């Protein structure tokens, strides 16, 4: 274990009594509670943390927060490993294991760095240019490029943790707990509004944590703590730390991810939680991000943002280097000087691009500390191989276009840069608000709002602490008032002592490079985009910023161009000779920073992806050896395997048994709808193609429902239970669609009808009793009510009781045998099911599953959604005989099928001629081996092995089916490269006279 060589003796907001051990690339280090991984690495003198995306250049830690482009690491091991995390955002914890990425074999010695030596071959868009030919080689190139260029790898094992989702509502949501956000939340909370404050740091404070100012003569973080405590004591306020608001959607829906655990979470605790927050009003107080200054080799380890340097010194007590140069174009960077000197870093020069140097307060600091100030000059390049060893400083021409000949080298190991500040406008931009370029601040700031939000503080371009506090208070009051609360008079902001911004920023988007030098000036560190790349793209005609972005990949990394966006736009504008506002910005899209897919999925993974519906008799099926099949959300018993049986044995046994004796199948999954009201019959008359108006109590119809375009929506049954009450059943998969369809017509087309619709799918269970002995079974099971053919004829329905439970018995058939459906309240489901089985024992009753059910209906030529596929009409199956000559939904559309045009396909049966199965989904063709394309005469809709016929059979829809009957064609499946000779027959294979159901 190494000593923390770069930790100061004292200072910082770290807990020096709690040392934490961690590893980076296998080497052990220590840090303290309060460190981030980045600060702990710096405290241990680790400068090299990653290799760049394309050129594999050495990279060090550049920022201190979400803006970090370089320090991407993989944290954790095994299935808990998370790639591409910013070291600046990873809270250090004991036992943390981190690894660098995109290097081989090691970070110090990386073979990929050869690309940097040959970088002339890899300009912007190089893969569009270089790897074009021959086209078939692209797969090979791609594999190489994907390996060479890249980020971390995701773990392959399933994620052992779980994730949560929560919905929340508030009057005022404040994003960001810096000075503006804290004041906004405080002001809104005092008005009585329900307030949420989300902040992505470990503790509130934002920029206060690294501020040299005082609030009420005290450390500004004390103020943040005080506000936090007041908010925590207010029951209407919820404060979420470690929570990043990453998306701003329609109607003030803000989505945030809360990181609840470092590494493995506590038992039963979600690792991360996604909050969906619907806010009345939003205050965006997301602060600002410092811009880098693009000069030659500005990516060497040791070059760092001035604000980041201040954070590491102030917050973490890190001595970043021995000899530092500060390079800036604005006053804010001067705030880093005193803390750096205190930490033991010797600041050897301050290079300021402004001719007149800084404002009075900043100048006073330089004077007091006795530092050398080089005004009107720039760091033209950083010198060094593995890290910064010095800088070359030259004067800058008045127009900023050229550097002078006055070269001077200054040895140093740290360069702190500040190119001005860019407000964090991502959420504002996501909310569809328009950005505006503020030339005085040299930054894009929020313009016109599109939603109920306002930006406050640095997020709208303000820089001073006192003005940010006041602006936050005003924004909080404005939001509370807009949400309908009395914010009272403007709250009094605490007294602040800070030094004032004197001389405005001098925009410097790229440090000029003399023509004899060819080094790289990086604009986008993460994606290795240089000033030259942007200039090249502009020369090649990429004038739109959106095209530039995609061609060069500028701003497309995981940091979403936080440090590079504005510099890149400005370089493009300069190259095109236009103004920055004319170039515009790219669109910011959610997420603001990467979010784990697991967090977005929440608990909806594995079996919880969708609800599973089980029938009331489910457990019985399980106990009796059923195999289950999913039908929509339902689990249905598919067949009941007996010892020694194959699946086919079981299906054939069950189907044969129904034809021979009696079987029972669970039909609880059918959609069931009760229709009541004075006009219920009239309504259903208009809905179904059948006559319903004349349906008597105690009778049932097999009925079709069409869409208004004439195609079949559903086939089902309609039973009249009482005068003003009908009981409908629909296909298992169609229940919800049919219900919505009926509701729509009842509510919007015929609102004058007195009709009430209730879905009772869950309230009623059902069992179909089918087979020649089904009546005997029912007679034994039913108390009282007779089930004789006189009392209950075919297509009749009665109410009765089975073992004391109320039931509705509908006599109809799907199998083609005599059959009854027995429906009962769902709570009696298992009771009635078992009572029926007991009653049927002497008649050899046997349960059967959906497979046998399917076999029986195919043998009978009955249709299911395979045939009713949304492209068929009743006449295709001969059901036009049901169509009445009065209006019903879809009737007018059917007329066009009668008025000539293309002939409809006909419904036929197929019998395999070679004793083998008929391919599912097969196409009917003349000659299965003819060269393609072959004429398709029809297609197979359903098929099975028929134990009754002892042949493979199928149903099909085909052209001119009547003419083909008796002839042989081929059913061919291009998917399985399989075909079978089939004889075309009628679609009813058994009992074509339909005698059996009627007894």
């Amino acid at each position, binding site marked *: 274990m190494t000593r923390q060589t770069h930790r100061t003796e004292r200072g910082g907001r770290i807990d020096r009594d709690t040392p934490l051990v961690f590893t980076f690339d296998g080497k052990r280090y220590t840090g303290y509670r309060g460190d981030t991984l980045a600060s702990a690495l710096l405290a241990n003198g680790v400068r090299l943390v990653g290799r760049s995306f394309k050129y594999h250049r050495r990279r060090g830690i550049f920022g201190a927060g979400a803006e970090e482009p370089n320090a991407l690491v993989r944290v954790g091991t095994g299935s808990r490993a998370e790639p591409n995390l910013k070291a600046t955002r990873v809270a250090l914890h004991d036992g943390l294991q981190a690894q660098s990425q995109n290097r081989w074999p090691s970070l110090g010695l990386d073979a990929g760095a050869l690309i940097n030596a040959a970088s002339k071959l890899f300009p912007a868009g190089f893969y569009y240019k270089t790897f074009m030919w021959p086209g078939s080689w692209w797969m090979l190139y791609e594999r190489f490029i994907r390996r060479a260029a890249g980020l971390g790898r995701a773990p392959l094992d399933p994620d052992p943790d779980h994730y949560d989702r929560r919905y929340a509502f508030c009057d005022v949501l404040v994003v960001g707990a810096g000075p503006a956000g804290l004041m906004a939340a405080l002001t809104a909370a005092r008005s009585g509004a329900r307030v949420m404050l989300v902040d992505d740091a470990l503790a509130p404070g934002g920029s206060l944590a690294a501020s040299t100012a005082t609030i009420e003569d005290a450390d500004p973080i004390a103020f943040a703590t005080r506000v936090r405590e007041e908010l925590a004591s207010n029951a209407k306020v919820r404060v979420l730390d470690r929570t990043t608001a990453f998306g701003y959607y329609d109607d003030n*829906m803000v989505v945030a991810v809360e990181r609840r655990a470092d590494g493995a979470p506590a038992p039963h605790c979600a690792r991360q939680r996604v909050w*969906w927050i619907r806010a009345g009003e939003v205050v965006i107080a997301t602060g600002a991000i410092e811009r880098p200054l693009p000069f030659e080799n500005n990516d060497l380890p040791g070059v760092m943002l001035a604000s980041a340097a201040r954070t590491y010194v102030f917050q973490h007590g890190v001595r970043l280097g021995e000899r530092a140069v500060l390079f800036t174009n604005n006053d804010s960077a001067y705030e880093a000087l005193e803390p750096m000197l205190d930490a033991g870093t010797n600041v050897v020069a301050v290079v300021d691009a402004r001719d007149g140097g800084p404002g009075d307060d900043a100048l006073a600091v330089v004077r007091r500390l006795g530092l050398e100030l080089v005004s009107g000059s720039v760091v033209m390049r950083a010198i060094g191989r593995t890290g910064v060893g010095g800088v070359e400083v030259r004067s800058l021409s008045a127009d900023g276009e050229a550097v002078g000949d006055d070269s001077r080298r200054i040895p140093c190991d740290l360069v702190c840069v500040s190119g001005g500040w860019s407000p964090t406008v991502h959420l504002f931009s996501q909310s569809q608000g328009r950005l505006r370029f503020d030339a005085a601040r040299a930054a894009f700031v929020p313009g016109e709002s599109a939603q109920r939000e306002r930006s406050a503080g640095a997020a709208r371009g303000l820089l001073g602490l006192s003005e940010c506090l006041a602006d936050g208070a005003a924004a909080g009051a404005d939001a509370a008032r807009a949400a309908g609360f009395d914010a009272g008079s403007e709250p009094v902001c605490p007294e602040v002592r800070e030094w004032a911004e004197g001389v405005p920023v001098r925009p410097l988007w790229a440090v000029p490079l003399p023509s004899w030098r060819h080094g790289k000036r990086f604009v986008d560190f993460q994606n290795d985009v240089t000033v030259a790349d942007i200039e090249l793209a502009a020369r090649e005609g990429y004038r739109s910023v959106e095209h530039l972005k995609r061609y060069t990949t500028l701003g497309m990394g995981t940091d979403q161009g936080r440090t590079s966006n504005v510099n890149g736009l400005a370089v493009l504008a300069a190259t095109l000779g236009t103004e920055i506002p004319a170039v515009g910005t790219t669109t910011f899209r959610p997420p603001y920073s990467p979010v784990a897919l697991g967090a977005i999925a929440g608990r909806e993974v594995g079996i919880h992806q969708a609800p599973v519906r089980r029938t009331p008799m489910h457990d019985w099926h399980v106990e009796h050896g059923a195999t289950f099949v999913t039908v929509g959300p339902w689990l249905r018993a598919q067949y009941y395997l007996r010892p020694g049986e194959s699946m086919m044995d079981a299906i054939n046994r069950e189907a044969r048994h129904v034809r021979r004796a009696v079987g029972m199948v669970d039909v609880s999954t059918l959609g069931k709808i009760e229709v009541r009201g004075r006009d219920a019959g009239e309504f259903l008359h208009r809905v179904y193609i059948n006559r319903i108006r004349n349906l008597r109590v105690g009778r049932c119809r097999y009925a079709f429902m069409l869409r208004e375009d004439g195609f079949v929506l559903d086939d089902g049954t309609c039973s009249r239970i009482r005068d003003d009450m009908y009981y409908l059943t629909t296909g298992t998969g169609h229940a919800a669609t049919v219900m*919505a369809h009926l509701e729509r017509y009842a509510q*919007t087309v015929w609102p004058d009808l007195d009709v009430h619709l209730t879905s009772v799918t869950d309230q009623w269970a059902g069992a179909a009793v089918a087979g020649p002995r089904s009546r005997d079974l029912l007679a034994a099971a039913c108390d009282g009510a007779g089930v004789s053919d006189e009392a209950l004829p075919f297509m009749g329905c009665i109410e009765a009781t089975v073992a004391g439970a109320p039931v509705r018995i509908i006599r109809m058939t799907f199998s083609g045998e005599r059959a009854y459906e027995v429906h009962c309240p769902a709570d009696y489901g298992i009771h009635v099911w078992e009572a029926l089985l007991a009653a049927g024992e002497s008649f050899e009753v046997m349960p059967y599953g959906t497979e046998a059910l399917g076999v029986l209906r195919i043998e009978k030529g009955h249709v299911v959604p395979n045939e009713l596929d949304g492209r068929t009409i009743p006449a295709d199956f001969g059901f036009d005989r049901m169509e009445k000559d009065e209006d019903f939904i879809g009737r*007018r*559309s059917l007329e066009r099928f009668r*008025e000539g045009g293309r002939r409809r396909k006909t419904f036929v049966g197929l019998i395999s001629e070679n004793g083998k199965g008929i391919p599912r989904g097969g196409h009917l063709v003349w000659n299965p081996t003819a060269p393609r394309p072959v004429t398709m005469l029809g297609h197979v809709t359903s098929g099975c092995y028929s134990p009754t016929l002892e042949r493979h059979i199928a149903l099909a829809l085909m052209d001119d089916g009547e003419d083909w009957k008796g002839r042989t064609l081929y059913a061919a499946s291009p998917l399985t490269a399989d075909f079978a000779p089939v004889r075309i027959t009628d679609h009813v294979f058994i009992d074509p006279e339909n005698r059996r159901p009627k007894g």
Partner: protein
Amino acid sequence: MLLITCPWCGPRAHIEFTYGGDATVDRPADPDAVSAEEWLDHIYLRDNPRGPHVEWWQHGAGCRGWFKVRRDTWTHRIHRSGPPGADLGEDEPR
């Protein structure tokens, strides 16, 4: 996530609703009274305006009521909603 106001339940997130198409066309009271061409128009032809449009929505995860929504297809803004018989009129001033 859009906020849609159900005329009976109040504002709710759009995941509770199902879109039901164009609400500016009415089913002819007597389908036989219109020509075949007019009927085909009724079934298949829909305007696709950029701007305000009146649509059917159903509050499927709530009261199950069908109702009309006046929505701007360009800005996504929902101007108002009302029961099936309502005339949703002109846009509110922006």
